């Protein structure tokens, strides 16, 4: 049942269907019925991947998903560098998410930038019993005194806040007034809300709408002279510097980036974004909400783009240029041409080592589709993919623009299913998260973390593609994978112990 012996699309389809059936057998009947809707084999020509998504995870299955707090503090708000983000509630949430997402920024940490600090109200029992509003009031004073150069504060709610009836909005309004209109943003991203990180993204977007855009004067002048070429990067968290290796291309083609959302971003950039001529959206899942809002409220068009791998980069540069005049269109061609020798050299070096290798992905809300082109540029073949917190519009985009016929699709996959799928399909590489990494490496399957870039990066843009290619090569072709079995034992094949 490995790919090596299964070649035709029909055979692969049958094999994948059989695999899904086999995996479902482990479950109690009710669970099998629910999980069946999230697993499918993609059929070419369909408008989506044929799976249900954005539905509650099933208790006890070892879902890989996180929570709304992770989506708001961890993803959307956390990277805004000149604001202090308070993890409001018990100590754990802020502790576990402290500095782990690699949102790069330039600033003097602790003085005018605060991304890699862990601010928490560290709730104790008395705060649960008597409420945390008074404590929050005092915390805001203490931040003002000890971190006077902060440009704003957000309050990222953890589970208890919404359960004990705290009124963080009232505290925020009162303190904002007390501090002369200071930006203080309450965010209702308690972890129990919604089904995954995804609702946290939405709540965080809405908080920008209500507490940032809601408080700026629509006709207010930006602090810089507008140009016809002003754009904002939306949905790039600058992981390992991704937004920088993207920004450089946009500027080289003649555009001017006036804001980054939210990697290496600042409050001033958020506030200035309504002056952009075009919002360009990388992570659709986490920031389509605010892009749509800006379109409705300020008339700013938005376009999705993909800066993984040269094929998608070139498409994207041309698509973005399509919103502008010939000067920018020529700029896009100039950029593509400038980087072509680098692309050719990278592909010449790495493609022969990676040609025909198979990949299985499981990431968040964007990369399960967005990185496929980059793998294909290297001759690699994505045979399975799924989203931790994608919605149906993500699966539509995946089906219509990315995956091949008969690709295995798994939504909100859990530990058991993912291990089984990998064991049976024997891919040459798995790309997923930290919780999955060591599981598959134990099974002798090469692995790259596709949330944190395994502490490498950037992967966006042409500069990033070279790093991506290098990293995939070093994972797949590490000599250690040929040595995992003791020479006196048989050849390695991925196995798992659970549920055997």
């Amino acid at each position: 049942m490995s790919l090596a012996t299964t070649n035709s699309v029909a055979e692969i389809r049958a094999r994948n269907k059989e695999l899904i059936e086999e995996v479902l057998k482990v479950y109690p009947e009710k669970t099998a019925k629910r999980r069946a809707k999230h697993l499918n084999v993609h059929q070419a020509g369909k408008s989506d991947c044929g799976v249900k998504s954005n539905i509650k995870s099933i208790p006890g299955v070892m879902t890989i998903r996180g929570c709304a707090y992770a989506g708001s503090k961890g993803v959307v708000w956390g990277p805004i560098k000149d604001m202090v983000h308070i993890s409001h509630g018990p100590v754990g949430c802020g502790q576990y998410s402290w500095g782990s997402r690699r949102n790069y920024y330039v600033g003097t940490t602790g003085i005018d930038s605060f991304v890699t600090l862990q601010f928490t109200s560290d709730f104790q029992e008395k705060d649960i019993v008597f409420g945390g509003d008074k404590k929050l009031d005092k915390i805001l004073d203490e931040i003002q005194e000890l971190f006077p150069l902060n440009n704003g504060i957000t309050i990222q709610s953890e589970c208890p806040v919404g359960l004990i009836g705290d009124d963080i909005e009232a505290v925020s309004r009162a303190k904002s007034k007390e501090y002369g209109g200071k930006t203080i943003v309450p965010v209702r991203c308690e972890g129990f809300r919604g089904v995954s990180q995804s609702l946290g993204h939405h709540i965080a977007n809405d908080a920008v709408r209500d507490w940032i855009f809601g408080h700026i004067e629509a006709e207010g002048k930006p602090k810089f002279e507008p140009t016809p070429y002003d754009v904002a990067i939306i949905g790039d968290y600058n992981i390992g510097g991704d937004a920088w290796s993207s920004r450089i291309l946009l500027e080289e083609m003649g555009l001017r980036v006036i804001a980054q959302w939210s990697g290496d971003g600042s409050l001033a950039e958020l506030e200035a974004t309504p002056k952009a001529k075009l919002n360009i959206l990388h992570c659709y899942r986490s920031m389509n909400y605010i892009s749509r809002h800006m379109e409705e409220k300020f008339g700013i068009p938005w376009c999705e783009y993909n800066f993984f791998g040269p094929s998608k980069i070139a498409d994207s540069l041309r698509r973005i240029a399509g919103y502008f005049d010939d000067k920018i269109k020529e700029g896009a061609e100039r950029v593509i041409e400038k980087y072509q020798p680098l692309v050719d050299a990278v592909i010449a070096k790495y493609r022969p080592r990676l040609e025909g290798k198979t990949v299985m992905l499981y990431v968040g809300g964007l990369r399960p589709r967005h990185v496929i082109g980059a793998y294909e540029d290297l001759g690699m073949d994505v045979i399975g993919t799924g989203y931790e917190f994608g919605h149906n519009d993500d699966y539509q985009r995946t089906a219509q623009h990315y995956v091949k016929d008969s690709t295995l699709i798994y939504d909100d996959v859990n530990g058991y299913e993912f291990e089984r799928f990998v064991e049976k399909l024997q891919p040459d590489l798995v790309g997923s998260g930290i919780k999955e990494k060591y599981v598959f490496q134990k099974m002798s399957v090469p692995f790259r973390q596709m949330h944190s870039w395994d502490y490498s990066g950037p992967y966006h843009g042409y500069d990033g593609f070279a790093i991506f290619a290098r990293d995939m090569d070093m994972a797949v072709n590490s000599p250690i994978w040929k040595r995992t079995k003791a020479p006196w034992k048989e050849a390695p094949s991925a196995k798992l112990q659970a549920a055997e």
Partner: protein
Amino acid sequence: MPQSAEHVLDHVELFRGPEYQQMLAKKKIFENPRDPAEVERIKEWTKTAEYREKNFAREALAVNPAKACQPLGAVFASVGFERTLPFVHGSQGCVAYYRSHLSRHFKEPSSCVSSSMTEDAAVFGGLNNMTDGLANSYKMYKPKMIAVSTTCMAEVIGDDLNAFIKTSKEKGSVPADFDVPFAHTPAFVGSHVTGYDNALKGILEHFWDGKAGTAPKLERKPNGAINIIGGFDGYTVGNLREIKRILELMGIQHTVLADNSEVFDTPTDGEFRMYDGGTTLKDAANAIHAKATISMQQWCTEKTLSFAAEHGQDVLSFNYPVGLSATDDFIVALSRISGKEIPEQLARERGRLVDAIADSSAHVHGKKFAIYGDPDLCYGLAAFLLELGAEPTHVLSTNGNKAWQEKMQALLASSPFGQGCQVYPGRDLWHMRSLLFTEPVDFLIGNTYGKYLERDTATPLIRIGFPIFDRHHHHRSPIWGYQGGLNVLVKILDKIFDEIDNKTNILGKTDYSFDIIR
């Protein structure tokens, strides 16, 4: 263009070149940045005694605390039992965080499930989540035991684990006689060390006191065995193996409770071992008969030890014994309790540690250290520094309490090298930053987050603690026992020598002291 296929530059070098530096400089105008002079002024102000005073006057805000929450400790303890699946009742994001946190430290898989409670469960309670969750976990992951703990969400709404587990069993989620011990582990009480204690006590209570009313309580028939509890420990792999080696050398019948030294160190050989090693359930039950229970970490096991004492066992606790005297005390206690002689091999190992200290102590003597971490770890490291003739100067534990403070102070008072040291319970790493600026020390000992303090204050960091995310594999080597003491000594010495080299390596300026022999 800086990038090339021949020499691929990643984030470490890519952004240093003029292309990116110019781009970043131009980005500034959109950031509405603070005046650089003002940034400089505030930066300098944060180094002052005045700032320190304001910083220490904080009553509500925590900045960079060095502690995590209870369920992390519960998960850590639970995986130390044979084929045991930790099941955390509450919001699911918490479990994603514990698993990530443990994997980032150990570079190992970390298996744990959640009952995935959402808004409806917040209103109606999480009984259905428990019932469905136990059924799914049991079928999918074939555990021998499911150890339940709670997130703060379940605690705030007041879910009753005992009743929920009973109901779930009645509904057939798991067989009636399947072991489902539980512990309430609210994140707003204590820290991860408290959660370790609660979970371990919950498991022992389950086996010893009649499995939540479903079985007769065990009757204790004392034998000569000793139970050992390691406590929450980033070095659990190396340390528990070292303790077991010592116990075996001494021929002491023993049970290590919550032995997670295998599950956090499985081989890569083609097979994923979701469960590995661990205290067998039989041994966990039989541990009631032991003569004594010894805890390596007092503040990880206060409730568990009281529980063992209530069952008639002798109990004894240490404070993360590192170094010569602490190991002596541990070995002597083992001998006293078990009646076994101390083998010559341990005397030789001790002699080697003494030898190493004698060889090197001149380089450590009189050096000032700041230490932070869990309460027991701080105590153990401070005690070792004192016997090296080093001078602990600031000892800070975010999850240390008043009792810890008093015990620390007594330790420091007992040595001429501890006279200049202050103890800070309940403080965080932003407090430590002020301490390092206003009362500088030569070295800092702490976890990975200490690197921010090293960057800001230029105090060289010696990484000992949890979590260690940015250095690999140190958890595999023990820091307990005489051998462990040697490992700690080498860690400290390496940093000291590196620092001397760093200060003396400028050609033609300082390199007269760039000695080849030290």
